[in-house]
């Protein structure tokens, strides 16, 4: 899983049927300290994350499909947690 921050949302009427009714968030990847790495991805939301929140993103297809209880959904990235704090020793 990777750490990120929600920086936006995308909207669209025409999409694959799997994504109907799902919120798609634009996630900026961050380091453990919270600094942006410059990279981004678009992930489906499963926890109700919102703008500017730090999140945990699962970037693996089989796990992502399991989250949505789908056998054949074309999904790889899904927001699976909202992060309050990251503690590193």
């Amino acid at each position, binding site marked *: 899983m990777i750490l990120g921050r929600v*920086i*936006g*949302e*995308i*909207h*669209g*009427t*025409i*999409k*694959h049927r*799997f*994504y109907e009714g799902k919120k*798609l968030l*634009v996630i*900026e990847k961050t380091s453990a300290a919270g600094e942006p790495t410059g990279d*981004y*991805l*678009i*992930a489906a939301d499963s926890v109700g994350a919102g*703008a*500017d929140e730090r999140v945990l993103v699962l970037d693996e*297809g089989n796990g992502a499909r399991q989250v949505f209880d789908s056998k*054949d*959904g*074309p*999904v*790889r*990235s899904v927001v699976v947690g909202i992060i309050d704090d990251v503690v590193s020793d």
Partner: protein
Amino acid sequence: MFLGRVIGQVVPCVVTPGLEGVPMLIVQPLDKTLKPKGKAIVAADATRMAGPGELVSYEGGREAAMALDPAFVPVDHSILAIVDGVNIT
């Protein structure tokens, strides 16, 4: 998923079984500010409705093939959604 802009269309005359009639579009990957990033790719259009100039969201890898019907055809990128708006905060 990532953001991209459709910049062209490929018209194949012979395709592998399962890919007949699937639109193949040339997609320029974009960064989070919608500026072009990297080299253009050819993606299968799973929405079958994307056209030149449109902002789209595409996925690569195994999930790209799962988006098409029949699934598991030999493609490496698929357009999954046509993006009407991106709200970056």
